């Protein structure tokens, strides 16, 4: 998928005008915060567990090289293979090679953000291999030729009639006049169609929520059970994971699992949490004969040495998306790439570079709700400010905005001049007619949807001084 993060302002215009998207966002706005609160209520120790979860992720980042080597050694000891991939191209080549070695024609996929990041579906298709997404949300957007609009709920933007239309278009061979309106009818049809795909697949590709260094296990968290059919039925199981996903022990994984689902769906655990260690054993009656882990760096190691490093703690729960006023207004596609919402705005500039993604760092009011709900306490506003600073140093924004910001910075560092200018402005505004100004010369874009309230006549500081003298 070619990123369009550089076109963020245009993407936003489109998103705001998209009625179906706006309805979907309105429908889900209250849901996630409510579910999270219900989930937290089942764990009175939530804040403490959050602290420990944060400490575990920081500890891993401090020793990432050692934990990765240990993880890889344990995968190999269990009979699996690890593929170290410095960038997306290397990961694509590794996956294709595994599929070709297995003589694969059909591949099922569990939900994987890394799969989206390296655009593995396009690559497999270009080489004559059919990838089938099996998470219902991912399947829907695959049929529609779209990217996910939410890291946990990829088809959040799609309405029920749109799902039905996609099924009618792509599920050929079923009766044309079949009823397909209720959610149950849609689910049953998806279940039946995908069941055949699961059984036919030669290779199953899943993501990984965590990698356990102690045992060489990969771990997925799902509600549908698609990730399990994906990895159990085919001959080969391929896991796509980024390097920062490693955790030390099963105990550490358990701690993180106590805050992961709670933070987004409010569940104590999702329906299925699966720990996979190597291929099937000699006396196992089922399971894959081969197990591959594709480890992707793709810019993360570089991020590790920057002030944005804390975004690598992220466990992809999606809580920040569901609590962000900006995400809630424009949805995920506006962010222009795989990761959206606050975590996407903090991560994407690190993976794609500022020239592509610097808009995202500005797509925030810095209200701090994302940090407040993050289960691993990532200071997302601070990271966004860091990216803003970096892009300023690289000369963006330029032109008039830059001049304006320079003038503001000059003034803000000189209290006396600041007071004089604000007092003068307040007095000038007071001369205007009404209680608010509807149009501002030179700031038409800003005032198109807002009025500027006119000041009461003097600044706060001036009023404060006056009252002090009165006493």
């Amino acid at each position, binding site marked *: 998928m070619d990123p369009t993060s550089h076109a963020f302002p245009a993407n936003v215009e489109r998103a705001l005008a998209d009625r179906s998207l706006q309805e*979907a966002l309105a429908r889900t706005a209250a*849901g996630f915060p409510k579910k999270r609160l219900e989930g937290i209520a*089942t*764990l009175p*120790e939530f804040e403490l567990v959050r602290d420990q979860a944060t400490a*575990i992720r920081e500890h891993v980042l401090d020793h990432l*090289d*050692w934990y*990765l080597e*240990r993880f890889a050694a344990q995968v190999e*000891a*269990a009979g699996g293979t690890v593929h*170290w991939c410095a960038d997306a191209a290397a990961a694509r080549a590794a996956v294709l090679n595994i599929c070709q070695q297995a003589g694969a024609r059909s591949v099922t996929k569990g939900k994987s953000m890394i799969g989206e990041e390296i655009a593995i579906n396009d690559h497999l298709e270009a080489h004559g291999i059919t990838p089938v997404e099996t998470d*219902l949300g991912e399947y829907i957007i695959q049929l529609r030729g779209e990217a996910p609009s939410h890291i946990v*709920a990829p088809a*959040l933007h799609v309405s*029920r009639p749109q*799902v039905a239309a996609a099924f009618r278009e792509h599920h050929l061979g079923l009766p044309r006049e079949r009823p397909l309106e209720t959610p149950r009818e849609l*689910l049953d049809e*998806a279940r039946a169609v*995908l*069941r055949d795909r699961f*059984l036919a697949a030669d290779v199953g590709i899943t993501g990984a929520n965590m990698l356990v260094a102690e*045992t060489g*296990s990969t771990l997925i968290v799902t*509600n*549908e*059970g*698609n990730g*399990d*059919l994906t990895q*159990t039925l085919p001959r080969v199981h391929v896991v796509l994971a980024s*390097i920062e996903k490693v955790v030390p022990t*099963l*105990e550490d994984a*358990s*701690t993180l699992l106590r805050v992961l689902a709670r933070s987004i769906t409010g*569940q*104590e655990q*999702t*329906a*299925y*949490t*699966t*720990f*996979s*260690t*190597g291929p*099937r*054993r000699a*006396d*196992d*009656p*089922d*399971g894959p004969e081969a197990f591959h882990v594709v*480890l992707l*760096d793709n810019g993360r*190691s570089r991020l*590790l*040495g920057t002030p944005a490093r804390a975004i690598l703690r992220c466990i992809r729960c999606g809580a920040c998306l569901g609590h962000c006023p900006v995400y809630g207004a424009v949805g995920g596609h506006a962010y222009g790439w795989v990761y959206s919402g606050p975590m996407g705005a903090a991560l994407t500039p690190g993976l794609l570079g500022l020239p592509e993604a610097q808009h995202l760092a500005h797509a925030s009011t810095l209200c701090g709700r994302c940090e407040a709900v993050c289960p691993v306490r990532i200071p997302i506003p601070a990271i966004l400010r860091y990216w803003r600073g970096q892009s300023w140093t690289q000369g963006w924004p330029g032109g008039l905005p830059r001049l304006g910001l320079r003038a503001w910075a000059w003034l803000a560092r000189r209290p006396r001049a600041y007071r004089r200018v604000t007092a003068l402005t307040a007095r000038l505004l007071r001369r205007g007619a009404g209680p608010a100004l509807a149009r501002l010369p030179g700031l038409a874009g800003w005032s198109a949807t807002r009025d500027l309230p006119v000041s009461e006549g003097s600044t706060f500081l001036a009023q404060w001084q006056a009252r002090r003298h009165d006493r």
Partner: protein
Amino acid sequence: MSGREQILARIRDALGRGPLDAAGAATLAARLQAPSANRLPAASRGDRATLLRRFAAKVRRAEATLVPLETLAEVPQAVAQRFPQADAVRVAPHPDLASLAWPAAGLAASLGPARADDRLGVSRAYAAVAESGTLVLCSGPASPTTLNFLPDCHVVVVHAADVAGAYEAVWARLREQADSAAFLPRTVNWITGPSRTADIEQTLYLGIHGPRQLHVLLVGTGLVELLEEGG
């Protein structure tokens, strides 16, 4: 440079150090050698009766059903009662389950991994976790993983003695019972309720790819009375 060397070099560069020294590595290795639990929630503590009652309540909260039984022998009848339409059942080849009187309950039982069109599967849990109502199933000759996911309805038999408070107790038991350093089976499945999705308009529906129904049979002496009096 191989991908591995390249990635490790970049990480060390970013961390501003070379490979960990021997002492540093030994500290980390020790942590993995003797893993210790982090904070355990209060919901994972309590006497047997409390934990069993909590387990039953949490299983039901996760949209599964649960019936307490006094003995294993009651299992086939309990399965037939819960699924009166069923006449065939795929049973995990576990000694606890294989020897039961399935035909007497009107069920034709076949042992082994699940097939695509199985309606009903029965497995035996390795353990269960009270704090969240989670079943723990370990793959192996007596527990095919496909049974957990392919059948429309999944019955899981849990021994009351195998109900732990927290996940950590189950990891400890797995380590203890292993005869080698590799103590995990190929697959450990935590199962908390039946398959579900909210991918259509963010509304939750049960039964997408995995079992539409999950039924837990909790077996142990005195359980029927215990779970009834406590609610």
